[in-house]
């Protein structure tokens, strides 16, 4: 292949227009040709330069356009003397129109592949902006309206109204009144009240029922649950903090299209993404009488206040793929593709004004409390403290969690208002795996004091040291959290060989163990992978924002094992015959003596295929 041909092909590949059979020889050429590699990297410099720009630069011409049109009066008819349309325009458009009709318009994919077509501009800095906006919010009060469609065949639409109140750093009141016009009085209402105030939370709601069990589902009456002695920023609390600033939903940030609009007299920016990314935000409503299930790759349009990035509206639209239709059939839903399934709106949003004392009401009298085991220690507790914290952070609650059968854990927290950091330390961890629920696949991180381990999404860092195990969590960007963990005076060691994370490796080690490994190139919107090597089998786990993520597993083999599930379909993957299982969310194929599997419960088949296309042999 000549260099000129290679550059022409690189240009096509950059736009996702290179055929699969030409991509192999191109990769081989570029690997051996330094000047073509430079060309490729310059293409990406050009793309970065053109694509990324500050949000908020776009002027709003609508008022002037409308005023001009109003002054002109009714639309004028076309005169033959007009320059538009120019000769040739119509036949070209007709030719184009034929192409439009022939083309199958697939639902948008939200994988950011820098080797594929560019994502529309201006969203690259959104994750940073969301993180930066956190401390600006000390309180929030808003009215809520939630409309849900397709929950039950006999109830086409449910309507909830209510309010949300938040006081930094972790007090929250969410009230929803069920205003649905049910077919008859035998249908129970699903009102919700959830109140979190520092060391306690309580919730009054009906126990969730499967929609098909309604209206006979018991119990019909709401139940109240009260939990006291709550640890600061406890994982187990149903606190939908992403309703206030969608930090979790944007932690790793995918490049997503942005639009500008005005909602409720506020300038808003819109982000098109999938349900999986906004899962932490939607999670806040899980308790509301069992909302319907949504398909992870359903389209989600999220509108954020341009200045504060508080969510103002969220709309979920049923995806249009065949897999979506099969998912609906399997889950008993009759969603038409493209219909709006969920419409959430926050109105009368008031920020940073003092909230009245009754904003966070106490639980009803006589409710028996469950103690969560946290004992505050106002004078401080022994345990490592970070030497570095982001500016503005001050100590917040600290104490000890002691449960009868678990280890004793010292908890220290810091906050600047909304953003927080927590260090949990124990000296009697039984071992076997890392302390702190980091998940099955972790990523080793180099800390100044030794080795640490990061969860796939970078939101949790575990350190195993002599006689001490530490977990660092918080609502910070992964790099900042790593810096906090690195400033603890703790000498982290690799985990013992018998622990579950012992097979954790770096990508370099995986490449040494399995040369020719397929690795995604130019993949945006996902963090660096957590890698695991078991003999010649390698797993790479990639986490994205919200619940988005996928697992890439490769093992020697020349044929796929018999399908574990009858619901598989044949798919063409990278010029090979592969298969896709909807139930497992798994795409599998064989390539160069290796069985390759891409698995995700939160990405669509289209997105998995886009990732597969981006894999390159290393």
């Amino acid at each position, binding site marked *: 292949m000549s*260099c000129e041909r290679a550059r022409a092909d690189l240009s096509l590949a*950059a736009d996702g*227009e290179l055929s699969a059979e030409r991509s192999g020889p191109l990769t081989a050429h570029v690997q051996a040709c330094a000047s073509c590699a430079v060309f490729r990297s310059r293409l990406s410099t050009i793309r970065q*330069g053109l694509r990324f720009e500050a949000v908020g630069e776009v002027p709003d011409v609508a008022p002037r356009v409308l005023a001009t049109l*109003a002054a002109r009066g009714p639309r004028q008819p076309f005169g033959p003397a007009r320059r*538009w349309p120019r000769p040739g*325009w119509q036949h070209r458009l007709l030719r184009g129109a034929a192409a439009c009709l022939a083309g199958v318009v697939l639902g948008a994919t939200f994988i950011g592949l820098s080797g594929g077509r560019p994502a529309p*501009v201006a969203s690259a800095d959104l994750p940073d902006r969301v993180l930066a906006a956190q401390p600006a919010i000390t309180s929030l009060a808003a009215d809520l309206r939630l409309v849900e469609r397709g929950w039950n065949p006999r109830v086409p639409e449910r309507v909830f109204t209510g309010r949300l109140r938040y006081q930094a750093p972790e007090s929250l009141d969410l009230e929803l009144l069920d205003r649905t016009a049910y077919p008859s009085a035998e249908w129970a209402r699903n009102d919700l009240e959830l109140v979190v105030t520092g060391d306690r939370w309580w919730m009054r709601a009906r126990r969730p029922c499967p929609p098909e069990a309604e209206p006979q589902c018991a119990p019909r009456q709401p139940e109240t649950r009260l939990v006291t002695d709550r640890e600061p920023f406890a994982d187990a609390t149903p606190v939908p903090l992403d309703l206030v600033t969608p930090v979790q939903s944007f932690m790793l940030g995918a490049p997503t*299209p942005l639009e500008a609009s005005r909602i409720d007299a506020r300038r808003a920016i819109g982000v098109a993404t999938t349900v999986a990314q906004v899962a932490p935000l939607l999670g806040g409503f899980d308790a509301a009488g069992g909302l319907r299930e949504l398909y992870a790759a359903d389209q989600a349009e999220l509108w954020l206040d341009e200045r504060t990035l508080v969510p103002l509206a969220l709309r979920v639209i049923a995806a249009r793929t065949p897999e979506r239709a099969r998912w609906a059939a399997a889950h008993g839903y009759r969603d038409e593709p493209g219909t709006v399934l969920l419409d959430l709106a926050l109105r009368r949003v008031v920020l940073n004004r003092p909230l009245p004392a009754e904003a966070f009401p106490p639980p009803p009298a006589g409710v028996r409390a469950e103690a969560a085991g946290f004992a505050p220690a106002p004078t401080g507790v022994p345990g490592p403290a970070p030497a570095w914290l982001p500016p503005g952070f001050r100590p917040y609650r600290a104490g000890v969690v002691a449960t009868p059968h678990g280890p004793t854990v010292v908890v220290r927290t810091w906050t600047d208002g909304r953003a927080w950091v927590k260090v949990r330390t124990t000296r009697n961890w039984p071992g076997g795996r890392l302390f702190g629920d980091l998940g099955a696949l972790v990523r080793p991180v180099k800390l100044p004091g030794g080795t640490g381990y990061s969860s796939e999404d970078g939101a949790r860092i575990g350190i195993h040291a002599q006689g001490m195990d530490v977990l660092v969590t918080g609502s910070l960007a992964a790099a900042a959290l790593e810096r906090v963990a690195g400033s603890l005076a703790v000498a982290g060691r690799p985990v013992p060989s018998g622990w579950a994370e012992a097979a954790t490796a770096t990508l370099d080690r995986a490449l040494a163990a399995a040369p020719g490994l397929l690795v995604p190139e130019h993949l945006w919107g996902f963090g660096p992978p957590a890698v695991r090597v078991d003999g010649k089998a390698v797993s790479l786990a990639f986490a994205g924002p919200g619940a988005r993520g996928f697992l890439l597993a490769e093992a020697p083999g020349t044929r796929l094992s018999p399908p574990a599930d009858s619901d598989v379909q044949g798919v063409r993957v990278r010029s090979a015959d592969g298969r896709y299982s909807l139930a497992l969310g798994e795409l599998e194929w064989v390539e160069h003596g290796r069985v390759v599997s891409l698995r995700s419960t939160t990405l669509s088949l289209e997105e998995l295929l886009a990732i597969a296309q981006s894999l390159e042999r290393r």
Partner: protein
Amino acid sequence: MDEPEPAVIRAAIAGDMQAFERLVRQFQPHVWRFLRHLLNDAALAEDVTQETFLRLYQHLPRFGFRCKFSTWVLRVARNAGIDALRSRERHDRLARDAPVPTPVLAPETRAEVRAAVASLSPKLREALLVIEVLGLSYREAGQVLGVPVGTVKSRVFQARERLTAWRAEGGRASEL
């Protein structure tokens, strides 16, 4: 780029100004970004964005749902942009403006990339921009620019060759 709901387009065609406003707000970021790079002038881009939507309103009754609405809007924007370029060229000739200075290094920063793109000929520049800034496919780009797909392909490649071979004098492509 998302397609508006057909009902909104139909309402706008029928003269519903609220529906038309929705279309303006949906497409103005894309139109403005494209024009800003095409014209290399934010203030002029704003004016031409406005002109685009005024033209669009006039032409709406001719939109027959034969093609994607977004492609159609961008085509109107592109034509308004080319008209503006031509009138500026005339003006520049009259004013005997100095030519665009030619940078001598490979563009690295965002500002350098923009300056480099601005020095491309309008044909190469518009082809590159509909692909890079708007993220259109080559087929859609062909519809917007009114040229065959093969022409899009070769113009985008030529634009990139010139931008990456920036060290060469006069901005001409050469071997790296």
